């Protein structure tokens, strides 16, 4: 067994904070005259669940495959764990975990054989019994890959991605073959993966999945970044429209109109509607309590990430 200390990263990388695991700058991928990824820049910080969100054909999978060294970029710089994936792909891929959108194993390869084979690639693999328990693979141990259902295959692939105790794992359309129960269970496991210290890069077209799981998101559309931030900040960038409502037929509207973040106050019958941005719900609630008029039906309606996602992709189109 040999141990090699790899060289320090290039200049572009050293500008990032020490906990930056992935640094992508001005990435471009062309096939002939067609650009499928254009001027994409982002970084992934250790310990987060980072989402690449976009419609089909947005360039998500191409981007993440470049990060893993499975494709070569046409232009731009990519640094993953201190490696240039284009030059040190094999070494890098032993340190990361990957669940690919389109991949398979030989039909007659049994689940146990697959786990043992992939475990042999790593110096300190996770105990196979732990993985089998975690991903409910124990009962499938002798079953050939070709006889597994879509969900069972997905569980096996995630187990294979985690087998080498990776610092970062790339999960591409993780829940696409799962039923709603399996989907929610998988979300929980993704959170558990992060809780054990593994950084997660989640590639998805599922807005709800991105909103529920990701700490930060990059939205790709037609190969370009159209939004970048936390799910909440991306929603806020829609233009603020948080609407707070409560029932109070006699309250004076001017007592609310000057609260921070409030843009508009109007009465609809006995109900008051306050339109604003930022933590407007908290300000309105605090004011009503201070006025000793706490309502029973105070609620806020915020635009969802899906609203913002649709707006972004329509704007970009």
């Amino acid at each position: 067994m040999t141990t090699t200390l790899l060289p320090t990263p290039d200049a572009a990388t050293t500008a990032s904070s020490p906990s930056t695991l992935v640094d992508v700058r001005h990435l471009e991928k062309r096939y002939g005259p067609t650009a499928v990824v254009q001027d994409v820049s982002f970084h992934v910080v250790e310990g987060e669940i980072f989402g690449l969100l976009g419609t089909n054909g947005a360039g998500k999978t191409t981007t993440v495959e470049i990060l893993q060294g499975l494709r070569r970029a046409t232009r731009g710089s990519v640094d993953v764990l201190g490696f240039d994936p284009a030059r040190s792909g094999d070494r890098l891929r032993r340190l990361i975990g990957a669940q690919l959108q389109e991949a398979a194993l030989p039909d007659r390869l049994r689940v146990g054989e697959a786990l043992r084979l992939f475990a042999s690639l790593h110096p300190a693999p996770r105990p196979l019994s732990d993985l089998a328990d975690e991903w409910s693979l124990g009962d499938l141990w002798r079953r050939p890959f070709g006889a597994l259902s879509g969900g069972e295959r997905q569980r096996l692939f995630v187990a294979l991605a985690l087998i080498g105790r990776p610092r970062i794992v790339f999960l591409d359309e993780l829940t696409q073959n799962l039923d709603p129960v399996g989907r929610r269970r998988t979300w929980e496991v993704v959170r558990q993966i992060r809780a054990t210290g593994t950084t997660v890069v989640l590639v998805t077209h599922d807005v709800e999945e991105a909103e529920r799981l990701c700490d930060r998101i990059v939205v790709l559309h037609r190969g370009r970044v159209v939004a970048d931030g936390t799910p909440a900040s991306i929603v806020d960038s829609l233009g603020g429209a948080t609407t707070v409502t409560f029932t109070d037929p006699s309250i004076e509207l001017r007592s609310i109109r000057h609260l921070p973040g409030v843009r508009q106050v109007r009465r609809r019958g006995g109900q008051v509607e306050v339109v604003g941005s930022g933590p407007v719900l908290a300000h309105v609630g605090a004011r009503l309590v201070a006025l000793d008029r706490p309502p029973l039906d105070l609620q806020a309606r915020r635009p969802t990430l899906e609203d913002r996602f649709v707006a972004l992709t329509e704007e970009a189109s």
Partner: protein
Amino acid sequence: MTAVSVSGTGTGRTALRLAGVELRLLLREPMVTIGMIGFPAATVLVLAGVFGSLPDPDFGGVAPSDHYFAGYVGVVLAAMGLITIPVHVATHREVGVLRRFRASGLSAGVVVASEIALGVVIGSAAVAVILLLGVVMYDLSAPVDPLGVLGWYVAGLACFIAIGGALGSVLRSGRAASALGNLLFVPMFLLGGGGPPRAVMTSAMGTISDALPLTHVVGGLRHAWLGTTDDPYALWWPVLLAAVSVLFAMRTARRRAG
């Protein structure tokens, strides 16, 4: 970003483990075994049965059964290189197995090494079956030049594993590999020493036969085993083809990586 240390797990060991897994998978595919061993075995038994085991001038004065069994060592290697290996590799590519291997850090070198190991094992097993049949059923004579037989066996193995790798590197599906493999193998088998003896071929057939790598591998094996042969046996030709095939496969792999 901090530098990261990488611990190797041993390329050779990984390749052997992968070859072991691949061998088990091949054995679970009965049609592969039948195609690679069953067809040459059945054919050589028929031919030896038809032409017999008495010395014959059309066979350079040797027993036709010896002529065929010695030559079929090469035929088995050709079946492996032209059909078994390309179908195996192309099917892996088609369904995404190679992609899955690559994403897990299994380098192309490890996959190639495992395919070579697999080729050596299944090629040797198939040759052993053919020779066992020859000894048991037709009292196959001992080789005149055992080292020469070994040398030509290694040359044939290298040539056809390399050709198989080159075909596998470029073909995108198992069906395409099977179709092309059979298209290449059947005429090569018939004109390259597996079919009629050279003495009964037309001059056009002889010209084509001279260009086939199998002809030279079979000719070399027969010459080393029997001490005589009518077939040409220029070692440089299969070796050159092996080298060209390796370069072609490497170029294709580099292009795919881009």
